[in-house]
């Protein structure tokens, strides 16, 4: 047999005969490489792969103004996008900026509605985004008014149904539009595409079927500035390679000129603060918020695991090959060089490598398949996620590297000059043991890494668990949002009359007539708020200067939420002092309000809660505080309950009407309400309403905390696998070395050592490494924890010594068991045969 075949063949035999050696290596490597590749594929999909229809995404950013609204109550950071036309004119960015808006109307063809979204954009948009035209005319400066462009998926779907839309006329609202071109599906900012009804799938496809209308936004005259602070304003994007971003001072000076006079004072205060910033937000980040950070986290976790796996493999190789020192010595004496030996060992391990690679590919696929399940909902997916040639190449490269490092290090102890010693000794005594310096170092390293990673992993898991799963301060189960939209904003606005009390007003009549229809349509559904309750869109801010105890003043901001009798109780919001509004007060239009604890604390820092009841909300206000409610988290993805709110009966009508529904006895809303039927019933009374959708609070919270949940589960996986690898590595090593040491153990048994003596002998040797590993691990943990907290703004929970001690205890027990059980197992067999070997 040729040497190559010989070594391959003997490697194949070893794969099955030497399971003590091959199994731990196979497990350590394939699991971690599988996870690493899974993470790579996900990261590639989320952070690297080109976005559909936006080939120039890396050039595009939106302009964001971050305003930090208060001194002590860090009000949710407001994000606002500058008014497009004014921005372009002022900073002369006509050809390098675009904007789009989502339209409410549903497009129709031949009386059938087309399942798609309509967007309006500046005509430069496609050019700046790098969107390709697939069929028909390409968009340009001259033809943008000639009709609409539709996206590929909409076109293909209709074509399969027998409608070639190119050149046909579709209707959008009142107007008829000619389809002049087909373009790629464009991956759009998350907020524009999140379908409120689609909760069936866990994965949100970034590109939805689209119809595009183009205009010259730069010619639009100065519009009214109403809604400047709303977060759902039109999306202004600029090509950062061509537009120089104005400096902060210039920009804010200009920005103030665009703000409504009544709000100017407030903005001036905000803009002057050093932490108010003009920022750019990358297009990709808007499309897949947090995806980059998450990908990085996944990759980092998987790489750390792979690091432990390499430590494991090296350790096992070292143990295994030390036992073969005699064989190697003989080979070296007969003229082999170390490099030849290494090649021989790589060859011998090829079958093991092939198996590791196959298993790694399977595990990577499983990981990719299961990750969306962990996040429960709304994982962005940029096209397909799969293991491609690049990933396979990566798997092979990492496997080869891991084996090579293992073999290189374990042969490094053979000194060619000292060959004679190996040959002369009986050969049995050299067999690997825990006194081997490389083993000592590696085992201690592994223990240290185990402690560091598990602790960091647990801290991160704990933090994210708190955000994703802890109490929001309001009930999440059985509560749903119902959203109605109209395309007639004049009609909607006609209900807002400043000085009118809410109860009995036109606005109240509108909302209560809709409530009536809803409650008649389903008996087990009650409407608990004629708005979104705590999740309402904030349309207005109140700001006031309050004097603190030390005499200094601070700017306090808060926003109003709709209050109706029974809402706070139904929504599970605790009232800590006073009472909520009574039906009588509501119907009498009494000027009363319930404020959250934060607001009460800021306005009346010196008064007890009981004393605050009956006081006005502020000096100028005629509203009287009748109750104080517990703080809550409006943003599920932040842990803090720091914002301040005031609950009052008023409602501001916009083109989106929102209601909060509660189902009784845990019934499913879908079983109780038929949305098409309900819409048509509402349209009988209010034909201006065009669409209706539901979303449960649970879905809302799930979507908002997706990132936290993924990080929570990933951290747990990291910790589990870290511990698992420690068990596989240490027990694998112990089994291997104890077996190799059976000669020494047998001699000791002839001299009267009991099994307990032998186990404690192995333990004693192991404890030294345990102590070293724990000491190094604890120091690194302390340092890493501080470092992460300081440099990554990770907001980890305060360092917990008890948790660290518990973790050390746990890993020590795992470690000692991993040493003790296999040793016991081997010494319980009769080791006599070891003495008979020759």
């Amino acid at each position, binding site marked *: 047999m040729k040497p190559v075949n010989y070594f391959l063949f003997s490697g194949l035999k070893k794969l099955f005969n030497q399971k003590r050696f091959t199994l731990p290596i196979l497990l350590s490597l394939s699991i971690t490489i599988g996870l690493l590749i899974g993470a790579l594929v996900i990261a590639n999909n989320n952070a690297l792969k080109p976005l559909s229809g936006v080939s120039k995404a890396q050039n595009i950013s939106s302009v964001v103004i971050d305003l930090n609204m208060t001194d002590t109550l860090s009000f949710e950071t407001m994000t606002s996008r500058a008014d497009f036309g004014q921005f372009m004119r002022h900073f002369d960015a006509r050809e390098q900026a675009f904007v789009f808006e989502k339209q409410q109307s549903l497009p129709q063809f031949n009386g059938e509605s087309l399942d798609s979204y309509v967007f309006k954009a500046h005509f430069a948009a496609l050019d700046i985004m790098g969107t390709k035209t697939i069929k028909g005319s390409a968009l340009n400066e001259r033809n943008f008014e000639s009709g609409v462009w539709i996206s590929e998926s909409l076109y293909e779907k209709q074509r399969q149904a027998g409608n070639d839309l190119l050149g046909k006329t579709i209707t959008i609202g009142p107007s008829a539009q000619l389809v002049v071109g087909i373009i790629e599906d464009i991956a759009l900012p998350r907020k524009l595409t999140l379908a409120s009804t689609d909760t069936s799938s866990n994965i949100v496809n970034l590109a939805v079927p689209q119809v595009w209308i183009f205009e010259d936004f730069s010619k639009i005259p100065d519009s009214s500035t109403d809604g400047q602070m709303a977060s759902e304003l039109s999306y202004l994007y600029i090509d950062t390679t061509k537009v120089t971003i104005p400096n902060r001072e210039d920009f804010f000076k200009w920005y103030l000129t665009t703000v409504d006079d009544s709000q100017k004072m407030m903005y001036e205060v905000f803009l002057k603060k050093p932490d108010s910033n003009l920022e750019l937000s990358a297009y990709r980040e808007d499309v897949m918020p947090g995806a980059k950070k998450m990908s990085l986290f996944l990759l980092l976790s998987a790489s750390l695991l792979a690091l432990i796996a390499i430590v494991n493999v090296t350790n096992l190789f070292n143990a295994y090959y030390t036992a073969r020192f005699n064989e190697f010595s003989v080979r070296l004496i007969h003229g082999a060089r170390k490099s030849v030996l290494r090649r021989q060992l790589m060859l011998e391990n090829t079958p093991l490598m092939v198996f590791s690679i196959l298993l790694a590919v399977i595990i990577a696929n499983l990981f990719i398949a299961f990750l969306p399940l962990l996040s429960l909902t709304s994982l962005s997916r940029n096209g397909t996620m799969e293991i491609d040639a690049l990933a396979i190449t990566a798997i092979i490269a990492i496997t080869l590297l891991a084996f090579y490092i293992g073999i290189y290090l374990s042969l490094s102890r053979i000194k060619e000059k000292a060959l004679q010693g190996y040959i002369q*000794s*009986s050969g*049995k005594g050299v067999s690997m043991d825990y006194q081997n310096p490389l083993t000592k170092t590696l085992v201690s390293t592994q223990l240290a890494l185990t402690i560091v990673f598990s602790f960091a992993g647990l801290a991160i898991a704990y933090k994210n668990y708190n955000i994703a799963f802890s109490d929001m301060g309001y009930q999440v189960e059985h509560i749903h949002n119902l959203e109605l939209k109209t395309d007639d904003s004049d009609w909607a606005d006609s209900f807002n009359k400043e000085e009118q009390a809410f109860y009995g007003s036109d606005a109240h009549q509108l909302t209560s007539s809709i409530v009536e229809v809803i409650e008649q349509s389903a008996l087990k559904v009650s409407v608990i708020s004629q708005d979104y309750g705590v999740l309402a869109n904030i349309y207005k801010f109140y700001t006031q200067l309050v004097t603190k105890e030390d005499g200094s003043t601070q700017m306090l901001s808060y926003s109003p939420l709709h209050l109706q009798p029974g809402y706070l109780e139904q929504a599970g919001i605790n009232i800590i002092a006073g009472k909520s509004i009574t039906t009588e007060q509501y119907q009498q239009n009494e000027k009363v309000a319930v404020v959250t604890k934060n607001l009460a604390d800021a306005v009346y820092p010196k008064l007890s809660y009981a004393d605050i009841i009956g006081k006005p909300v502020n000096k100028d206000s005629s509203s009287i505080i009748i109750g104080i409610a517990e703080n809550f988290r409006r943003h599920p993805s932040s842990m803090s309950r720091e914002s301040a709110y005031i609950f009052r009966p008023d409602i501001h009508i916009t083109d989106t009407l929102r209601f909060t529904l509660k189902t009784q006895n845990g019934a499913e809303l879908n079983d109780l309400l038929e949305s098409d039927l309900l819409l048509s019933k509402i349209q009988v009374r209010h034909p201006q309403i065009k669409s209706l959708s539901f979303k449960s609070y649970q879905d809302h919270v799930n979507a908002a905390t997706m990132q936290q949940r993924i990080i929570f589960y990933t951290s747990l996986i990291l910790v589990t696998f870290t511990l698992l690898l420690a068990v596989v590595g240490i027990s694998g090593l112990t089994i291997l070395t104890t077996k190799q040491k059976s000669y020494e153990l047998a*001699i000791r048994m002839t*001299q*009267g050592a009991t099994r307990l003596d032998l186990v404690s002998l192995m333990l004693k040797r192991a404890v030294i490494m345990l102590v070293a590993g724990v000491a190094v691990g604890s120091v690194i943990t302390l340092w890493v924890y501080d470092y992460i907290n300081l440099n990554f703004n990770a907001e980890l929970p305060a360092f917990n010594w008890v948790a660290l001690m518990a973790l050390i205890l746990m890993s020590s027990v795992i470690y000692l068991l991993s040493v003790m059980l296999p040793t016991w197992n081997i010494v319980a067999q009769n080791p*006599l045969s070891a003495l008979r070997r020759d």
Partner: protein
Amino acid sequence: MNPIIKLNKLNKSYKNEFIKTLALQDIDLEVYPGEFISIMGPSGCGKSTLMSVLGLLDNFDSGKYLLSGLEATDLSLDQRAKIRNKHIGFVFQSFNLIDSLTVADNIAMPLQYQGQKAKEIAQKVENVLAQVNLSSRSKHFPAQLSGGQQQRVAIARAIVTNPDILLVDEPTGNLDSKNGDQVMRLLVQLNKQGSTIIMVTHDTRYSQCASKQVQLIDGKIVMENNVKETEVMHEAS
């Protein structure tokens, strides 16, 4: 006087998936305190098997083994370990020293398992090293010694606990005649001081040193005879 070892119709076989080897068949043997017994026989006849049964290293299929009146089959693994530690010393053909331990540490091992104090152990090791003439080598490792020296270390380890019985399996098999003679002289001396010795050997010269010779063939005892005079021994010394 009661025999220290009494075997009655003892059988032992080895089984693997293909074949069953009858290693010992109907062995009857009595050994009295102070005796020096040599066991002879061709390779593979069961000599080492008999030694490991006697040394409580291995079990047997049937028959009886009384050691100082104790039924061997009644003993637990740990009880066997204790008995080996206190009452039995082993010397093997291939020395079986632990390469990573010094000469002194190898010898100290059985004492450590008895839980003796470090000082006492050091003293006893020193004494026994002097007895085997290796005082200057206590800090050496086995690989740094010659074969004869290694075997003397093994003997030192076997006798350091002052065992009632010494089980010696071809102690000279790996040694040249000069070193072999030296080892044999040591054993005879120990026997004279009262040790009971059971020794396996190929060498008829050395078997003459024994007070009783046992001949094994194919697992059976074919001949037992007592030797009155230890003439060869006198020659050798």
